[in-house]
């Protein structure tokens, strides 16, 4: 197994994890601090008085602008027009006349990764496709998000075999939409969850246990070449 531990395990600097400021919301709420990412002296205690004041002062100044930006971003995702298999049909239907994803402003499917900021992995990811998807994801401009739609690319689903790779093995995924294939409503629910996440108010659910939002990715200084990561994925998948 070459999978990264979900909560920064041994040998991974928590500062390099993509989601590292998870506890901000809890801190502001004054709740008890949890999570493996925290420095040891903060673990298991609450912020009080001056510490809390300073913490809040640091955040509030930048918060308003951030909020405006997050609001703008979260209400106009430009998904990449990218269908792999069955789920792509339900993705069509989400954009179709009955579900009409345009109600939320997500109807502008873009053909080029340069113009897109959301990749919906709709279908099964084969070992041959994985490096290409990673490359597409790498070519998208920041900020970018990923939704893994359907069982196949979340966990390989019913086809747990030599040919497939789950998406979170080679790229970070923010929201998983279960189903085989998920109904269009489910996809829209997933996109709306992502909207809440981008607005920095994620529905954590059971992820509180991990202190994580989606799949975390270690950002090293030099990004890993796509081919190498896919080869690693292939080795484990084919073994």
């Amino acid at each position, binding site marked *: 197994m070459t999978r990264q531990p979900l909560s920064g395990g041994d040998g991974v600097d928590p500062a390099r994890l993509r989601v590292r400021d998870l506890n901000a919301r809890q801190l502001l709420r004054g709740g008890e601090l949890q999570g493996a990412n925290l420095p040891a002296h903060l673990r298991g205690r609450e912020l009080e008085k001056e510490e809390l004041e300073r913490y809040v002062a640091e955040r509030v100044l930048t918060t308003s602008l951030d909020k405006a930006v997050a609001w703008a971003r979260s209400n106009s995702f430009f998904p990449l027009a990218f269908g792999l298999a069955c789920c792509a049909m339900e993705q069509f239907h989400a954009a179709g006349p009955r579900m009409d994803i345009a109600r939320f402003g997500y109807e502008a499917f873009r053909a080029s990764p340069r113009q897109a900021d959301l990749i919906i992995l709709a279908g099964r990811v084969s070992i041959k496709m994985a490096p290409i998807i990673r490359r597409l994801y790498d070519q998208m401009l920041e900020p970018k998000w990923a939704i893994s739609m359907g069982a196949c690319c979340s*966990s390989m689903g019913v086809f747990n075999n*030599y040919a497939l790779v789950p998406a979170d093995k080679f790229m970070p995924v923010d929201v998983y939409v279960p189903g085989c294939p998920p109904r269009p409503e489910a996809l829209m629910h997933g996109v709306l969850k992502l909207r809440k996440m981008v607005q920095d108010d994620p529905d954590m659910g059971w992820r509180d246990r991990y202190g994580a939002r989606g799949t975390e990715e270690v950002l090293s200084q030099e990004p890993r070449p796509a081919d190498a990561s896919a080869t690693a994925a*292939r080795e484990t998948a*084919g073994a």
Partner: protein
Amino acid sequence: MPDATGLELIAQELRAAQGAPPRTASGSPVIETIFFRGRGTLLIEPAHIRGVLAQLRASGYGFLASVHGVDHYPAEPRLGVIYELLDMSRVDRITVKLLLHSERPEVDSVYADGEDGPGWPTANHQEREVYDMFGVIFRGHPDLRRILMPEDYEGHPQRRDFPVGGEPVVFTHNERTALGTPK
């Protein structure tokens, strides 16, 4: 569909025509006729495949519907290649099957035209798939390389001794063991 007698007649014709040279490696081209569930199958010597298909084409079976492989592991010869032929005017199907030893799974390609008659262009992708999935080498195929798996993949996944693969799915109850982080 040819009935059992019809199948025997076809086999007789094939024996009469193909048993003689040019390719008389082992005498009769038809090893066995199998009639099962109303469908006829000719089990033939691999060396005669081009000749047998050409003769069947001459007798009307002009449409090669499918070429696919099969693995009879652990029996030997274990690798089979199956050619499904269709006669559109009589709406009649016949199956031609050959078995190859896994030591040297080689058979003549029926894709390209040869001196013994025209080929079957439809066999191009299908032979490549059989090569990819079973490792059967089609002699004379001009472009025999992997078609579904990546070019640098090792092994032939559809062979029965190839593991299905996959990986354990991480749930809350098995995250410790599946992720390999003992705590």
